[in-house]
């Protein structure tokens, strides 16, 4: 393992500093009891801050320990997210065996292959083998009712929660063209997580400031075109400002941030649609006290594979 370069420390340290400031501000707002502030919004902000602290420190710690630790951590997160996804999607008794293999074979195997850098295998394991295996196994179980629907639900859960998310730790194994990038890929992963999270926040802020034209009122009433455009532009600017931490030129960093933002936006909206269909607000609410892992992951699940492939195509 190579020691992290100065840029990595700056990036992680900078994020921690911003988080610390945000936490202090939130504490201060809490003590002031300002009547103009919405207490529910403040509460939500505090919860998000806690989640970010957790994410940031877990990511920083695993990056310091090494690639394998990061892969294992993402594997466990995938497992939990898939658990939430399948819990909320009604399956029938006959799906049991298929589900068993999905949880205990395909999920761990995907991450093992990522850990061994077997790109040729992990990029097709789930989209080819699992996607064919699931309906076949359900057919063998002999229950034809709502057959396509049931297969599709399990396939979608596995694709989103496991396959897509596994591309985040896979970033660590990319062989970037510039030789000085060997062993420094943690920064690329950090860039992805940071841009996704900030994209969410910036879009939320623009929605609040200027939001008028709701994109899909049946699915999410707070996401507006103004928020989307404002979020896109400001996220691209943020990406540009972080170009020094990435292997990209400034204008490419802007483009990458834009790609991440659009994918993250699509992820958030898609997962909202699934939640509406199931009649829940958060993936966490069915199971009290567990908080939804999936609620925090929806945008990164969509952004990770796309960011990975664009980077792989142009920079390795």
């Amino acid at each position, binding site marked *: 393992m190579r020691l992290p370069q100065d840029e990595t420390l700056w990036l992680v340290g900078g994020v921690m500093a911003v988080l610390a400031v945000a936490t202090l501000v939130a504490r201060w707002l809490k003590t002031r009891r300002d009547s103009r502030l919405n207490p529910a919004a403040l509460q939500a902000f505090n919860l998000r801050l806690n989640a970010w602290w957790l994410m940031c420190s877990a990511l920083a710690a695993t990056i310091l320990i090494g690639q394998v630790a990061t892969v294992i951590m993402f594997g466990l997160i995938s497992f939990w997210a898939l*658990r939430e996804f399948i819990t909320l999607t009604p*399956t029938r*008794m006959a799906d049991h065996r298929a589900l068993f293999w999905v949880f205990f074979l395909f999920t761990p195997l995907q991450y093992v292959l990522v850990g061994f850098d077997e790109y040729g295998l992990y990029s097709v394991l789930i989209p080819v083998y699992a996607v064919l295996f699931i309906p076949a196994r359900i057919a063998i179980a002999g229950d034809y009712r709502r057959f396509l629907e049931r297969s599709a639900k399990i396939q979608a859960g596995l694709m989103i929660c496991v396959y897509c998310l596994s591309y985040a730790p896979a970033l660590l194994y990319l062989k970037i063209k510039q030789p000085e990038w060997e062993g420094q890929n943690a920064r690329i992963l950090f860039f992805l997580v940071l841009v996704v999270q900030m994209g969410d926040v910036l879009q939320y802020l623009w929605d609040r400031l200027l939001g008028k034209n709701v994109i899909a009122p049946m699915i999410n009433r707070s996401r507006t075109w103004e928020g989307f455009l404002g979020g896109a532009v400001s996220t691209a600017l943020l990406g540009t400002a972080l170009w020094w931490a990435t292997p990209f030129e400034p204008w490419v960093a802007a483009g990458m941030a834009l790609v991440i933002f659009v994918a993250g936006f699509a992820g958030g909206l898609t997962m909202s649609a699934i939640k509406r269909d199931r009649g829940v607000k958060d993936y966490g609410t069915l*199971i009290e006290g567990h908080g939804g892992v999936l609620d925090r992951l929806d945008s990164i699940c969509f952004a990770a594979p796309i960011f990975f492939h664009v980077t792989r195509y142009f920079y390795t």
Partner: protein
Amino acid sequence: MALALVARLLSGASVRWVGIEPDTCQRVYFANHTSHLDALVVWSALPPRVRSLTRPVAAKDYWEKTRLRRYISTMVFDALLIDRNEIKVHNSPIDLMIKALGDTKSLIVFPEGHRNTGPEMGEFKSGLYYLAKKRPDLELVPVHIDNLNRVLPRGEFLPVPLLSCISFGPPLWLEVKEPKMDFLKRARDAVRNLKER
């Protein structure tokens, strides 16, 4: 206890106490029955000091089938095994349960009598009524088990790690001169109502 921890992790069970607190007083927990894991998971959902005083009531034919099951049911959670095939008047399950309760113990029972595979709960057997009649001092606590049937459905031996939810509800007692069917319906509704809350 290690097994309790494994059961909790496996079933991903979150535990809710709605209008009731864990207590070591004598109680009969009655729950819907959907999976072989039910007894184990409800038992492990109790806090340790309550758990040590609580015995699940389970079917002898299932829990005595293999050596492992026998070990778990007798040594680990000290289940009261009832022979479903040989219910006799002079040695009825109710008498066994009353004997097992003594002055300190609590029980976990599944009044449906067998595992239910459909989406709706089965009718309650009358055992709970007779138990309440003979021991009116017991707190009867409804317990609702959600989603566990998907973790380990009937006839399967490999569990799938979905998230399940165990809810404990406010206790009820047999009213004076309450007819059997009314009481059983009330008890069944108490379990069902926990699903929505």
